[in-house]
């Protein structure tokens, strides 16, 4: 019976990595947001599955948060923002998609190498899970540094954080998971609101972070 549960968890975690790659590939903001929603949904599923197999009911709360907040509220909010800002058709990336994908593959390989050195008696599920989580985290970071637009950077950050939640839930019987996911949701809310605030105050004409950098303390 262990085999099946393992395979499903494995499948879900792997698909999360896959979706991260999709995000990396997608350079239209609107589509990117949609894919992020998918990302959140997949995360929800895997968290729920973990809740089931670890019969840890408190993980359902995490799953619920993931579904409601990350899969619905945030994407909706972001859509409204980018529509308001009129950048919903924008194409945004610093390095070419191909290059980004290559880098991503390299990162996944790296995380595999690093994680598979972990001795096996830490149970395989955890190990695989961690490998995937690590790659999701790295891909999220990669996304943050290869996108110029604040919205896509936020999305990068959020998928990074999804990786964290994946790891946390994968870690059997880890306490404070719920609190942590809540805390992170707050963090993300802050970020989104931050972008939104700046927009509303008419202080920055674009959410491009470079606009912020124009107001750096010591101009050259």
């Amino acid at each position: 019976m262990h085999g099946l549960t393992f395979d499903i968890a494995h499948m879900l975690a792997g698909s999360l990595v896959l979706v991260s790659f999709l995000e990396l590939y997608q350079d239209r903001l609107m589509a990117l947001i949609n894919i992020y929603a998918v990302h959140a949904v997949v995360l929800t599923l895997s968290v729920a599955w973990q809740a089931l197999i670890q019969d840890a009911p408190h993980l359902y709360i995490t799953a619920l948060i993931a579904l409601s907040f990350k899969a619905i509220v945030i994407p909706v909010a972001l859509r409204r923002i980018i529509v308001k800002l009129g950048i919903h058709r924008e194409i945004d990336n610093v390095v070419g998609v191909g290059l980004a994908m290559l880098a991503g593959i390299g990162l996944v390989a790296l995380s595999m190498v690093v994680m598979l050195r972990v001795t096996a008696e830490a149970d395989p599920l955890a190990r695989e899970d961690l490998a995937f989580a690590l790659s999701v985290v790295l891909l999220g970071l990669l996304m943050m540094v290869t996108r110029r637009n604040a919205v896509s950077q936020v999305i990068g950050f959020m998928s990074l954080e999804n990786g964290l939640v994946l790891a946390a839930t994968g870690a059997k019987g880890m306490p404070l998971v719920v609190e942590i996911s809540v805390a992170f949701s707050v963090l993300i809310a802050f970020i989104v609101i931050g972008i939104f605030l700046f927009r509303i105050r008419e202080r920055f004409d674009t959410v491009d972070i470079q606009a912020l950098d124009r107001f750096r303390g010591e101009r050259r």
Partner: protein
Amino acid sequence: MNVDALEAILIVPLIAAAVLAVLPGYRLTASLNVVAALATFLLSVSLFWTEPHSGDYLLVDDLNRVFIVLTTFVALTTSVFSASYIGHEIAIGRLSPRSVRFYHAMYQMLMFAMNLALTANNIGLMWVAIEVATLTTVLMVGIYRTHEALEAAWKYFILGSVGIALALFGTILVYMAARPVIGEGLNAMVWTVLVRHAAQFDAPLLNVAFVFLLLGYGTKVGLAPLHAWLPDAHAEGPTPISAVLSGLLLNVALYALLRFKMLLALNPASIAPGPLMVTMGLISCVFAAFMLYRRRDIKRMFAYSSIEHMGIIVFAFGMGGPIANFAALLHMTMHSLTKSAIFFTVGHIAQVKGTQKIADMGGLTVTNPLLGWALVVGVVAIAGLPPMGIFMSEFLVVSSTFARQPLLAILLAFGILVALGGLFLRLNTIAFGEPRGPSEPAHASYVPMFAHFAIVFAAGIYMPPGLVAGFENVARLLG
């Protein structure tokens, strides 16, 4: 219910924060702020003889006792300084009463978060506390609502969040490493339990964990190249916050790092954390030293000097050994006291001059002798010249390192020398020469800065045996 000192130093700031959030009028709130800080300080001092129980969530041991007392003390002096500083800010209308209320609440909140981070016996709790501390400081950095302030806050916020995320991943990994040995549940995150079983943990997992923790908490410590948020946050926030940031928050993050270093040190199979820390420390020290030269904003300059000193401290802890650890602890203490005192001085100078631009300052020892000479003393101390305390720690670090790793010692000494050059280059124009820029008579609170300088000076000459014993004990703990 009965509350012992340990819980009290968490509860007092929390209550104070709640109260200050609603009370109007800055005089009252400022004095309340001071009172709360004083209470916390006294409680923390009482930790030395009241032996509170260390539960699953909180603990007191020799390591964090040092940190707690230092934190609460600097918090106290800073609150005294901030009273006069904020008064001036209100007078010139830079801060509205509402934002002042918010500021005081946040100040106590920050104190709570830092105390929690220091006393937490649970690595998850510690992480949460540091995140809270970061967020509160973000809000305070942005309090002036100017372009620069918001930009600095935003930068701090983004980089800080990423750091937090990395640190969390590291924490999870530590749990994963601990679980097979200790078993599921809370115990696998309780510090005291972890330490007991650290030897059996899975080394490679621990290694990955440490990398993430080093980067995550290293961001907060301000190690290059993760330092980017630090200079701007120091420069744009209110000066008391700069003092707290440099004097305390960096230490708290460092404390977290040290905890995990001890964990790794206990595990023979894992990589030695030393070399990593030594490398990052060295990079930060030399890099920051060079960055001192082109600064035009006085607060930003001293922020970079903080990076340099954090580099030295991390370097020393990385070197390890009784002498180096002792020196690192001493250096950390001295740096907190000196740097916060310098920021007190700088805050008043900026108010007197009405600017933070070094170009508009000059001949302070002529126009405002007390402030000017205070700055001179501060720079002398921070540059590691005797008879101030930092000289002792630098003496110990450099000489003990030179006997073991001459090349590293030479690089470190080079960094120190370059930094000294940069600091004095600016000091010459600020404190000496023909007076420049506007200057109004200072109505400053000299007590905090001179109290700090007095302690630093005394420590450079004579260290009380009790303190020494404590430090040596901790140094032994750190291995």
